[in-house]
Each structure stands twice: as C-alpha cells, then as structure tokens.
C-alpha cells in the first residue's frame, strides 16, 4: 500500500519536476552586467551599451580542448557590437571606443598624443578611409566578425575587418624580442592563468586607439603595453578585458571589460578594402553603371 502511494506520488510529481527543469533551462535569462553608457572624452558624446543576455542553464560546461585548456575556437561578435542576440543569430554592430570615464588623468604632454584634432589629412583623421590598417587596439572595436582558431601552441585571431587583419599569438609565454620595430599589430605572447588566457602585447606603432571621435581621433603611443584577459563566463559568452598601460599618455594603467559572443552560424568573409572604395577621399570615381553610352 505504502509502495503504491509512493509510486503514485512519484508520477504525480514527475511532470512538475520536468516543467521546473524546462523552465529553469529555457525561461530564465540574465544580463551579464548593466546597461551603461560609454562616452567620448571630447564633446562628451555617449553611446548606450547593452550587455549580453544569456539563458540560465544548469548543465553548461566550458568548452575545452583535448589538452584541457578552455577552447575559444569559433566566430565571435566582439566589443564592436551590442550583444543582445536577436533573430537569425545576429546582434547590432556599433561604432564605439574605450570609455573616457574610466581613463585616468593624462601626464603633461599626454593629451597631445592622445587627442588629434581634425586636420583635413585623412592619414591622421581617418586612416582606414585610405585603406590603411585599423591596427591594434582599434581592431578591438571592429563591428565585424572575428574568428579565433586555437591550437595547443598558438592562437590565431582573424578579423573580417580590415583586409582580414590577423594576429598569430604563441601561447608559451615566451619573452618579447628586444628592439622590436613597431607595427600595427605589435608583438603578442600568451599564457594561461588557470582558465584565463592572458595575451601581452608591445611593439605597437603610434596609431589609432579606437574609433573616430567628434572633431578628432584618439591615439596610443609606441610605448603602449596592452594585456588582454579572456575567459568563458556563460554559454556563448566570453569576458574580454583590456588593460592599457601607456606611460607616455596616462598617469597610471587602466582596464575596461567587454564581452564577445560566439555566433555558431557566422562565417568570416573576405574583406578587400581597395576593391570598390569609390569615394574614398571625397572624389568619386565614376562607375561603369554611370557612364554615358
């Protein structure tokens, strides 16, 4: 009799438990962080940033490689997106930069390196308009896809923008070479701190810090030292933290955190800037479609 009651009770409760499990799996979602504004340091223009929204799941396991390291292989929307993923696995590309509110005071002379008022010369005002590289750190804010390909000894980060700009990063914590010739991508080495991948970059050419700003652009110097910290925080969501130390500009280092969202349906496309850049400097080239016959 007792046995029968137990069986009845079990089957009565079973649908409830199943519903609760389903509800927990699919109904709850949470935002990873707060809706906030990032602001340009000049003219104080701001942009609303929405954090990734992720479903609450009970059984998510961090992707790992065969050697047990966190696996970041995949195609992502990085810091150049608002991350609340909508229909068709897409989210919103945005033009943003580092948040001026978190930057410390500049050193004497630092602001002259950091902010370049508009000159009329596109090499200063907007070098990508001439199809020059976006470079690192600007590339962090690329509002295009980026593909991470991870092997035991190297990580390859391949951006769609600009001209499929790529970084090949050894993961053995080797020292940076001495007397580096500054480049747009700099020299990066990686190592693991538990489940966090740490990428250390020096050897950067004095170049754009992020994106265009009202009446000018922001730059880092050739002394910039950048440390990226990358770790999985939720299904499809990676925390991407950037620590910037530029002793020619700021009085102390500063850090800003972003998110990258994995997009399983995305593929990286070819991007050739010179292919059809018809009005690059304000002088348009006539298309065949516009020629008189």
């Amino acid at each position, binding site marked *: 009799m007792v046995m029968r009651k137990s069986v009845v009770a079990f089957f009565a409760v079973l649908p409830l438990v199943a519903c609760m499990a389903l509800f927990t799996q699919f109904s709850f979602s949470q935002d990873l962080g707060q809706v906030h504004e990032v602001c340009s340091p000049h003219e104080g223009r701001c942009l609303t940033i929405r954090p990734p929204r992720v479903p609450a799941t009970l059984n998510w396991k961090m992707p790992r490689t065969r050697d047990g390291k966190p696996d970041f292989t995949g195609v992502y929307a990085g810091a150049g997106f608002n991350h609340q993923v909508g229909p068709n696995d897409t989210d919103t590309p945005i033009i943003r930069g580092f948040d001026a509110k978190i930057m410390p005071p500049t050193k004497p002379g630092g602001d002259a390196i950091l902010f370049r008022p508009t000159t009329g010369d596109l090499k200063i005002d907007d070098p990508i308009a001439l199809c020059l590289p976006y470079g690192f750190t600007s590339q962090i804010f690329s509002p295009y896809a980026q593909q991470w390909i991870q092997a035991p000894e190297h990580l390859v980060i391949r951006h769609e923008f600009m001209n499929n700009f790529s970084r090949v990063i050894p993961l053995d914590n080797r020292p940076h070479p001495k007397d580096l010739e500054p480049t747009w991508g700099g020299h990066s080495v990686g190592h693991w701190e538990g489940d966090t991948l740490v990428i250390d970059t020096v050897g950067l050419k004095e170049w754009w810090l*992020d994106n*265009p700003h009202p009446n000018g652009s922001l730059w880092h110097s050739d002394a910039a030292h950048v440390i990226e910290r990358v770790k999985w925080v939720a299904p499809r969501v990676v925390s991407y933290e950037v620590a910037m130390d530029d002793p020619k500009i700021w009085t102390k280092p500063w850090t800003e955190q972003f998110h990258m969202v994995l997009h399983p349906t995305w593929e990286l496309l070819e991007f050739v800037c010179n*292919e*059809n850049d018809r009005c690059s400097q304000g002088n348009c080239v006539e298309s065949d479609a516009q020629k008189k016959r």
Partner: protein
Amino acid sequence: MTGKFLNLTAASFVVLLFTTTPFIAHHSEAAQFDTTKPVKVSGVVKKVEWMNPHIWFYIDVKDEKGTVTTWGFSGLPPGMAIRKGFTKDTLKVGETVVVQGFRAKDGSNNASGNILTFADGRQVFPGALELGTVPANKP
C-alpha cells in the same frame, strides 16, 4: 496615401539623422559625404555592386523632361549587410525604390544610401550602420 507615406519616411529620416549619431560615421563617411546636403531620389535599380568596403547600388532617375540620370549610393559592407538580413537578392535590378542619403562632397551624382524604401513601403537601411543604438547626446 502617398503623401502620408512620404511624410512618414521624411519623419523617420529626420529621426534617424538626429538619433543615430555614433562617435562618428564609419569608413570616412564624413570625408566622402556632405551631411548638410540630404538627397532623396525615386527611380529604378540599374545595378548592384556587392563589394567591399561598401556595397554600391545605382538608381536610374528620370526627370520631368524624361532625361535619365544614374545615381550611385554607398551602402553597408557586404558582411554587415548579410548579418542584418540584407542579402545580395534583397535589391533587384528593375525594382522601383526611393533612396535617401547624403550627397558626395565632390558634387557628383553619388551619395550615401541611408534609407531604402520599396514600392510596398518596406524599408531597409543599407547605409545606416548604427541603427538600433541611440546615443545619449550630452552638451
């Protein structure tokens, strides 16, 4: 009806102009196009160039005398357009559309293609990168 439709598109264009200012436009749109010179044309799609760094599409516009001028419009980059659901097949040669944007600084018949309206009223935004983000402009 047509008047109402035009008023709506004009209103949304104005809203777009004043609410989607990002840090600044992308890929030197400021260097290429004059934001003080808005352009609005109605015509037939002649050609679509699905290429980087931005797609271009060409519209044959007929004036009162029947003279046809071909306008060129710069849209989104192909990758970004695809991820927004604007594919190579969205805009078909021969289709009648209305396009709004800003004229090229050199005064040629080229412009940014910020809003594209089909004959049935559907609107797509081939050139407006920042749609969906409304920055809070502060003094």
